[in-house]
């Protein structure tokens, strides 16, 4: 024991005058008795019967001394210097990546990990606090530091395995940064170890505990799936499949490709650990429908990543009518083998030609009336346009464009130079998708059930036809106007686990 103010102990010296005063005060009256023999006998028996009798007689002095002792201690401020366990701070990192859905541990690895985490929560003392970090495709602090075990239990029970690759590294980094900020934090990681090598993470003062979940690591999965047009055969398509083995040993597997449940491709591959294998399957242009890719690896512990799907659109030829167009435009439109281009001078245009075309491009002349419900593009401020134009705008500077609009995909507009454009007085129900300081340069929208694309400038008065962006924009326009989707997109693919 130590004292914060040892000088306070001097107060204890008051005990001396206290006892002296007590003794001086205690003057006993002398009484002579014939003998004290019986008194001594009596007192001996009294002390045996009531051993505290002598203290009781001095009770007042004892109380005074006790009060003085307490007062002295209060002034001296005693304290004990000892190692007292402080409240623990624990960060629970729960891996919710797709591999945690494996069922080698019943019911799943994630449930088992949550159960282990619950045990860690139960072991917390009343003053301990814990935080739950979920490391899935994205890292999230699901429960901030709390002493509420019920809250942690509820959050652990509500976790589900994601269907995408997780990032245990991110979760661990978050936990460790938390540990650095607070100091003395324990980090408990509940994972199947699928996060890769994490040895390079700086632990600092944090105490890391890894709770492995799962019995093995035999897993292979489909990492990527895409459908592209074949570069050698215009109407054929190629299916790209990327598979990978995640275990520590090579895995032999079979990749099967089905189109509407008909097997159209089969490969046997040996998957080396952490070495993706890229496979290409040629699909004839006549095929369409649901494409299912199945990876079959014996002993695979996670089935969720063994199958992937996409929808392959049927190849349809699009009838495009170019009215009054130039050679560059015609060539750009005919670059797509699915496009059957017909050109006609504006003067020779007949309604039947418009009727027979899927998409009409007006590049000169006057836009005829009666196009309601049709799908067409007007390449320039032509008369007859649903948009009402105003004065000429010289060298308008592009301010921005709708990058996500199907017509503008894969197109850069920031350095496109336009010599002259026309200001837009009335958008005619269209929406600008390329803006400049002189007003909209490109507008698009739906009118009367049809689709309309409108340029506020003549392409020949810009450098756009000289750019790669021009054919891409035109083909995008063909796709959007004809089907409502980008022409370069052959399939609708959604990444696994993506919202």
């Amino acid at each position, binding site marked *: 024991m130590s004292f914060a103010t040892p000088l306070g102990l001097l107060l204890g010296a008051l005990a001396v005058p206290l006892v002296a005063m007590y003794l001086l005060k205690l003057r006993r*009256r002398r*009484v*002579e008795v014939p003998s004290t*023999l*019986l008194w001594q006998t009596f007192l001996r028996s009294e002390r045996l019967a009531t051993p505290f009798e002598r203290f009781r007689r001095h009770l007042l002095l004892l109380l005074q001394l006790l009060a003085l002792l307490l007062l002295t201690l209060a002034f001296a401020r005693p304290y004990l210097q000892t190692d007292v366990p402080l409240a623990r701070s624990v960060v629970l990192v729960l891996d919710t990546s797709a591999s945690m859905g494996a069922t080698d541990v019943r019911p799943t690895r994630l449930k088992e990990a949550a159960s282990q985490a619950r045990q860690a929560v139960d072991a917390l003392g009343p003053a301990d606090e814990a935080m739950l970090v979920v490391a899935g495709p994205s890292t999230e602090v699901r429960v901030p530091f709390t002493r509420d075990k019920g809250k942690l239990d509820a959050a652990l029970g509500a976790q589900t395995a994601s269907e995408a690759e997780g990032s245990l590294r991110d979760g661990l980094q978050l936990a460790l940064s938390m540990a650095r900020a607070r100091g003395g934090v324990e980090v408990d990681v509940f994972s199947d170890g699928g996060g890769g090598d994490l040895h390079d993470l700086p632990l600092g003062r944090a105490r890391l505990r890894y709770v492995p979940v799962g019995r093995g690591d035999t897993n292979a999965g489909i990492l990527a799936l895409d459908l592209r047009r074949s570069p050698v055969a215009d109407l054929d398509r190629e299916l790209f499949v990327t598979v990978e083995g995640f275990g520590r040993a090579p895995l032999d597997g079979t990749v099967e490709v089905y189109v509407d449940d008909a097997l159209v491709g089969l490969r046997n591959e040996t998957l080396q650990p952490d070495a993706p294998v890229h496979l290409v399957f040629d699909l004839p242009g006549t095929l369409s429908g649901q494409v299912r890719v199945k990876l079959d690896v014996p002993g695979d512990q996670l089935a969720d990543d063994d199958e992937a799907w996409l929808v392959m659109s049927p190849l349809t030829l699009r009838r495009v009518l170019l009215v009054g167009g130039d050679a560059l435009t015609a060539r750009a439109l005919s670059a797509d083998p699915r496009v059957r281009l017909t050109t006609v001078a504006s003067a020779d245009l007949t309604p039947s030609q418009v009727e027979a075309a899927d998409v009409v491009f007006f590049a000169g002349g006057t836009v005829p009336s009666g196009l309601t419900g049709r799908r067409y593009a007007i390449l320039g401020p032509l008369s007859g346009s649903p948009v009402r134009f105003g004065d000429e705008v010289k060298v308008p500077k592009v301010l921005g464009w709708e990058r996500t609009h199907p017509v503008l995909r894969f197109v850069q507009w920031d350095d496109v130079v336009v010599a002259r454009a026309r200001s837009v007085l009335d958008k005619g129900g269209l929406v600008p998708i390329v803006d400049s300081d002189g007003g909209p340069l490109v507008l698009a929208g739906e009118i009367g059930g049809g689709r309309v694309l409108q340029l506020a400038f003549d392409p020949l008065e810009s450098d756009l036809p000289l750019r790669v962006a021009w054919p891409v924009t035109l083909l995008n326009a063909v796709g959007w106007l004809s089907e409502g989707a980008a022409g370069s997109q052959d399939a609708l693919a959604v990444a696994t686990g993506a919202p």
Partner: protein
Amino acid sequence: MALLPPELLARLERLSLRSRKRGAGVRAGERASVRRGRSQEFADHRPYVPGDDLRFLDWHVYGRLDALWIKLFEEEDDRVVQLLLDCSASMKGEKLDYARRLAAAIGFVALGHADRVTVAGLSDAVQSYAPPRRGRNAASAVFEALEAVHPGGATDLGRAVEGYPRQRGSGIALLFSDLLYAEEPERPLRRLLARNRELHVFHVLAPVDLRPAVSGDVLLVDAETGEQVPLSVDEAMLDRYEATVHAWVDAIEQTCRRLGIGYTRVPTTMPLEDLVLRDLRWAGVLG
């Protein structure tokens, strides 16, 4: 006769000191002796042995039974009544005064029946001693001897008995004491009993012995040893002390009964007349 009032003396003349045992005195007295003697009171027969005085042959028995039997007669004997007063400092005051008067009364009774009476003051030694005297005429001397006993010194009854002169013939020792001494009373009482045919203890106790009138913080000083005992006394403690004293007195009485010693508790608050004329007669000490 300052010790006893004349009225009491007059009433004492009709009493005698009773003995529970028979002794062998040196002079003919009024007490029956264990020795068969020359009185006219027949006691018993025994066979004749050569050397017996032929005057005591019972010729009637010889005529009837043709056997020689000697007639035995009671011999009346005197006694030595020893009045032993504890004169230690603890007896100072009313206890010694009461003991003197009680001893005087019993001595007066004894002198009236041809007993020889001695007086001794005992503390840790024999402080005073008056040799045996006989007859009523010696009463004054006995009383003076009693008055000459002064308190002082510590109590060592065993040592005092050692120094006390042995008496010839049978005797009865009457000890007047508060028995307040450190040694167990059994040993000196045994020693005293061994030297006398009979012993009777008058246990003199004053109120200060039973329940002293003290309260609060007091320092009790032993009158004999000067030993001091600091005390904070209250009524509850006095009650417990009184119980202790009674237990001690009972234990002494039990010891006396066990040793065949007469015992009489003598509180100084009791009138002497009541003690002598009523209690001692009732207890068979006087008759």
